[in-house]
């Protein structure tokens, strides 16, 4: 330890600057006086002359004091810095002397802090940050309360949109988009082989309302979504805005594409602009999906289609949610479903509810994310307690060193600072490592396109996340470093020095604290394990849900067909022929078990028509549900693996023959409770639909919610909106896909190379948020368990070391190794049991708080608690076994001699 250079002089030009200066100046005057006397002056006069010559002594004195203070300040600063540097050097030295301690602590902290940064970034992106639009707090989503009839009940007709827009007074503007757009609804043609593209049909003012500026070109005008010719097989006007990613990928960032025409479904469409990179439609409105381009929806074309648009509004500044709702309730009774039908006036009463767009996008995830945040916070807490414990263990081992340093004059503050410094160095290094981990995780997550979480693509480590990292690190280091520091500083140093052992008195005291720390670690791990257990059980229950179809060994592909014909009848006929050919052609591929076509698939978008009524009965308006509607071909039910009673449709159920339908069992139970629905008749206006079959409920909306009414119509009698071919086969998709596509191209050379998608992915996508949360919480629980193990091991191992002489004596007095071993294990189990008991109480409270996140699992779910207790006990036994082994193999003679 080298002493800083100025220390040697500290007491000369030191704290008492004033006295030093006075003395120095006094000497000067004396010397001068002496000289004058020597020159012949009288002593009195000489002194006066010397003082006169000197001038204003006080002024000089003041200057001196100022300089002195400056020096003093500078010294204190460098004093502190040098001490701190010394502490850091010392820390690194001691840490490098104990690499296993250092690396374990570092790893623990890196994992805990990294997990915290990653989760904070997710929470910040999804929950805390505003939506990526200017003044996004003005944006509202306008939808009815949730219902069973899917998207059709969550949307509005073109007439309703226009009236709502003109009648409402609280909006700057209202817009919307066609909610029934499905992936790959367009074909990009005229550039070699047709390529499928997903085009969202939006109302002309969509981007203006959101506040999105084009990167190149212009946006749509409202007129462009009113009238005019539409792109074939769509309700879109021939104008397009390209999504930035699509423009870069498909058009190689060619800026001259703006103003030119591209070909969609064989018709020219003018590209009016390119959207900015910052605009990600899927991230906000349709998590896990992508949009390649945007086209203005033709409201006039859509007018006859019923409910088709979702509404998004931008409120005037200062308008509250309550005011917006009042205004919507005022307007709703006057709004028509279709202005041509006066009786449709007021149909949206109570069905126009504006909520903040942010709530619509992320509201469902709020609880999950907050739970996740707590889980990861618990991990940090456990890691912190663990760090405290390890520091304490080391501090105890170094009690003598501290005592000696104390005796040599190191202040207690200095010792606390030393321990705090260790904690800071470890936490800091842990945070850096953790940040690295988090960056990797975040980057990976941001590219999980199939994960149905909103805004995920904008996930990144930003300044807020960095600030959070800093906060978490400093807090961890301070709280968990201060604890052992204070503990040591309070200990009686003399006692340690006097004592010949490893500090018996202090040791026992430490042990109690360390035991308390381990118990709290176990309790926290307990809470995590129970939460993870409950979520795991929920997830497995979700996977066990009878979807009503078999998602494995089935694939879907979007099929293009041409049913344009002068008359409706001719069109139906043309389509039936085309569908029959497709089903026959693909069905003939060897290894294919079943083939069918539907316009919508489960767990995706859906729609409903009309409200059919059982023949011969009267119902109050609104009493009957509006069923979801699927237009299917014969074979589809078998291809999807749905269970059917009665008969499937056949190709001979033509436009001229009896109208037939298949309904789901929910609808059957609701319409004809306790009766056989087959053969019954449903009335839709004057049309009579004969029920020929009943299928078991298929989960249409989500895996977790209950199922409403569903109706299946044959494509030979009703018009499907598109065609999704479903193929069931045990063949591998690599073999199957080219064969199917070749078959389709033989029938229709225009068929584009659409994606061949396993039906399983639809289910995976639907359960992906739950899987995501479950996996994370389980990972955290595993981490918690690991940390608790380390804690238990550390404390038991330390106890054994401390008690070595005692054990030696006992063994010398005849205790067997087995007995010693049992005692150590019993000690371990006592700690663990205390932790489990404490943890269970907290876990019950936590489980009740997260009850809404569970699926078909009670917060009291016994297996989760039992699983937790078993896991902890096993792990405790394993981690207590090693020290117990060591204890039982102590040689009494050695133990006694070493003391």
């Amino acid at each position, binding site marked *: 330890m080298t002493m800083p250079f100025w220390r040697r002089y500290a007491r*000369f030009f030191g704290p008492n600057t004033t006295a030093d200066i006075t003395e120095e100046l006094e000497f*000067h005057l004396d*010397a001068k006086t002496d000289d004058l006397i020597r020159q012949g002056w009288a002593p009195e006069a000489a002194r006066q002359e010397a003082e006169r010559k000197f001038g204003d002594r006080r*002024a*000089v004195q003041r200057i001196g004091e100022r300089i002195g203070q400056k020096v003093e300040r500078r010294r204190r600063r460098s004093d502190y810095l040098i001490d701190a540097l010394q502490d850091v050097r010392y820390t690194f030295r001691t840490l490098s002397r104990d690499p296993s301690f250092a690396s374990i602590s570092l790893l623990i902290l890196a994992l805990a802090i990294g997990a915290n940064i990653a989760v904070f970034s997710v929470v910040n992106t999804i929950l805390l940050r505003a939506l990526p639009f200017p003044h996004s707090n003005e944006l509202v989503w306008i939808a009815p309360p949730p219902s069973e009839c899917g998207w059709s009940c969550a949307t509005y007709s073109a007439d309703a949109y226009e009236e709502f827009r003109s009648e409402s007074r609280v909006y700057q503007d209202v817009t919307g988009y066609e909610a029934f757009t499905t992936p790959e609804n367009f074909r990009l043609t005229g550039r070699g082989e047709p390529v499928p593209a997903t085009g969202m049909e939006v109302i002309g003012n969509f981007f203006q309302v959101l506040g999105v500026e084009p990167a190149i070109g212009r946006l749509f005008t409202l007129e462009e979504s009113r009238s005019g010719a539409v792109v074939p097989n769509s309700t879109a006007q021939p104008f397009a805005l390209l999504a930035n990613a699509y423009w870069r990928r498909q058009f190689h960032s060619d800026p001259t594409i703006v103003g030119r025409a591209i070909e969609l479904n064989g018709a020219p469409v003018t590209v009016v602009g390119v959207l900015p990179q910052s605009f990600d439609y899927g991230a906000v409105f349709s998590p896990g999906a992508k949009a390649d381009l945007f086209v203005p929806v033709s409201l006039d074309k859509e007018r006859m289609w019923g409910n088709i648009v979702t509404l998004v509004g931008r409120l005037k500044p200062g308008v509250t949610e309550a005011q917006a709702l009042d205004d919507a309730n005022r307007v709703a009774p006057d709004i028509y479903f279709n202005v041509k039908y006066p009786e449709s006036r007021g149909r949206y009463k109570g069905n126009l509810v504006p909520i903040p767009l942010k709530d619509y996008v992320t509201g469902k995830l709020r609880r999950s994310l907050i739970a996740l945040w707590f889980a990861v916070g618990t991990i940090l807490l456990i890691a912190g307690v663990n760090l405290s414990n390890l520091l304490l263990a080391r501090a105890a081992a170094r009690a003598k060193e501290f005592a000696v340093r104390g005796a040599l004059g190191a202040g207690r503050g200095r010792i606390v600072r030393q321990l705090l410094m260790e904690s800071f160095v470890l936490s800091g290094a842990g945070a850096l490592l953790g940040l690295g981990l988090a960056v990797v995780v975040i980057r990976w997550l941001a590219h999980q396109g199939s994960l149905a979480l909103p805004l995920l693509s904008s996930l990144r480590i930003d300044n807020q996340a960095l600030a959070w990292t800093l906060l978490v690190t400093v807090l961890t280091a301070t709280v968990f470093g201060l604890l052992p520091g204070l503990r040591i500083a309070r200990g009686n140093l003399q006692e340690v020095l006097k004592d010949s052992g490893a500090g018996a008195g202090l040791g026992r005291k430490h042990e109690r604290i360390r035991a308390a720390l381990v118990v709290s670690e176990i309790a926290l791990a307990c809470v995590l394990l129970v939460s993870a257990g409950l979520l795991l059980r929920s997830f497995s229950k979700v996977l066990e849900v009878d979807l009503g179809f078999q998602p494995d060994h089935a694939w879907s592909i979007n099929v293009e067909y041409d049913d344009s014909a002068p008359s409706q009848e001719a069109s139906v006929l043309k389509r039936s022929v085309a569908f029959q050919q497709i089903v026959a052609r693909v069905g003939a591929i060897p290894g294919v078990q079943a083939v069918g076509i539907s316009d919508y698939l489960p767990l995706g978008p859906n729609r409903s028509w009309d409200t059919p009524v059982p023949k011969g009965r009267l119902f109050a308006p609104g009493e009957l549900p509006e069923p979801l509607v699927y237009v299917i071909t014969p074979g589809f039910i078998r291809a999807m693996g749905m269970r059917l009673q009665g008969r499937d449709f056949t190709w001979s159920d033509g436009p001229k023959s009896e109208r037939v339908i298949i309904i789901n069992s929910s609808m059957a139970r609701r319409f004809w409770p306790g009766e056989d629905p087959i053969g019954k008749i449903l009335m839709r206006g004057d049309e009579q639909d004969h029920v020929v079959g009943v299928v078991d409920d298929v989960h249409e909306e989500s895996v977790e919610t209950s199922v409403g009414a569903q109706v299946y119509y044959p494509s030979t009698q009703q018009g499907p909106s598109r065609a999704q071919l479903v193929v069931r086969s045990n063949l591998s998709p690599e073999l199957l896909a080219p064969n199917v596509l070749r078959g389709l191209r033989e029938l229709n050379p225009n068929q584009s190379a659409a994606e061949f998608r396993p039906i399983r992915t639809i289910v995976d996508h639907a359960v992906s948020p739950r899987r995501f949360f479950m996996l994370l919480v389980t990972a955290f629980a595993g981490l918690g368990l690991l940390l608790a193990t380390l804690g238990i091991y550390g404390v038991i191992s330390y106890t054994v070391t401390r008690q070595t002489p005692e054990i030696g004596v006992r063994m010398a007095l005849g205790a067997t190794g087995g007995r010693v071993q049992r005692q150590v294990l019993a000690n371990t189990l006592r700690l663990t049991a205390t932790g489990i008991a404490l943890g269970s109480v907290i876990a019950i409270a936590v489980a009740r708080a997260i009850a809404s996140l569970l699926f078909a699992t009670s917060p009291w779910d016994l297996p989760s608690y039992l699983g937790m207790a078993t896991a902890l006990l096993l792990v405790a036994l394993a981690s207590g076994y090693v020290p117990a082994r060591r204890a039982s193999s102590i040689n009494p003679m050695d133990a006694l001699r070493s003391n």
Partner: protein
Amino acid sequence: MEIAKLEFLHGTLDILILKALVWGPLHGYAITGFIRRQSDDTLLVEEGTLYPALWRLESKGLLDGHWGLSENKRKAKFYRLTTEGRRHLRQEVKKWEAYSAAVAKVLTAARLPDPEEAR
């Protein structure tokens, strides 16, 4: 001597102090004496400027101050050149020599330089 009342040119006193200490530690009073004698009583350093200058040099680390006994056995503060101070002195002396030579050359000019030489 009117010159003695002139303010020291900026920084000049510092060099003189440093120079005074080249042969060993001195206290403040001895430094004034050295400068006075060395300049044949032309440069009289006032106490009001000397001590602040000393302290400033000390705080910059060019001087080291320490207490010792004076010739007549009284406690006095002695100043010693530090290595840094010695280096500083060498530099400043070089600067000063160049400066004074230049000034002297100008002041001793005998005639107006030729116009084409002027720049």
